[in-house]
């Protein structure tokens, strides 16, 4: 009987482990859902830039520059989710 008790005590999940598991799960969810929006937005911007270049090839440089800046701005929500995921992994889940 005492043997079974020690086994149960060793296998018991503490509160800290639950927090760690939740932090890892939260990091995965945050990154996965956070990547959807920037992915769609940046792809849309790149597609429109392709159309623009095919219409006016002489404005190549300006279109590429504007596309990069617009993509960087629309990327910022993805970067926020990346920062939140890294915080969850390295600060909360430690």
């Amino acid at each position: 009987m005492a043997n079974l008790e020690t086994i149960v005590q060793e296998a018991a999940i503490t509160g800290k482990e639950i927090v760690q598991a939740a932090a890892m799960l939260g990091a995965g969810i945050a990154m996965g859902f956070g990547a959807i929006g920037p992915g769609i937005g940046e792809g849309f911007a790149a597609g429109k830039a392709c159309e623009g270049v095919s219409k006016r090839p002489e404005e190549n440089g300006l279109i590429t520059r504007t596309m990069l800046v617009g993509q960087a701005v629309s990327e910022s929500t993805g970067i926020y989710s990346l920062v939140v995921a890294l915080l969850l992994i390295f600060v909360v889940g430690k």
Partner: protein
Amino acid sequence: MHEVGVVQTASFDLGPLHIVFNPVTLIMTWIVIALILITFVWLSRKMRQVPGRRQAAVEMVMEMFDGLVKETIGKDSRRYLPLILTIFIFVLFSNWVGIVPFMQEPTKDLNTPLGLAVIVFFVTHFSGIKYNGLFRYIKSFFEPIPFLFPLNVVGEIGKFVSLFFRLFGNIFGGSVIIWVAYTMLMSSWWTSWILVVLGPFLAGFFGLFVGLIQAFVFMMLSMTYIAVAKNQ
């Protein structure tokens, strides 16, 4: 897993102040500054009226940026050209120094992009006040209706928060991905040969390509913020 998230810090007491700093970031920043100095002194040595090959390369970069800043900022663009070009070259070299083994990017630490963003923040608002007058510049925060003043202030701060988090997140995320690939593939001998192909690709993509794009984006956005505040 834990050596990535750990930031090495050193601290000392200066009277009542307890000062904490990151020695790795500090040393790497000095190395980057030394690299920039050596490169550009070497490139612009023995300047002549008719440029040689090295001088022509630097002049080409200068002319390109002169045109870019003039296009974006407009009047008095030469006043902002040194700041913009310095930001670009510093961030570019900081991002690229990480591809050398045992070197860490200074931009991987949040404090370096934060410092650059604080500089851009003060330059933006100073030039906004200088070119529009204090009253007109403050009035622009109450612009559509006075009720929206808190929203405008939060938006103004959020611009700069996203500016430095973007640079930090891209560089740090890239280094975490490289670290994950290396530790996972090096754990057993029969997967480590993949690194021969994957290692240079990862370093080239996250170091050279993302570093160049992010340096350009940081420069371009800070220039746009300054231009928006200045030419209201």
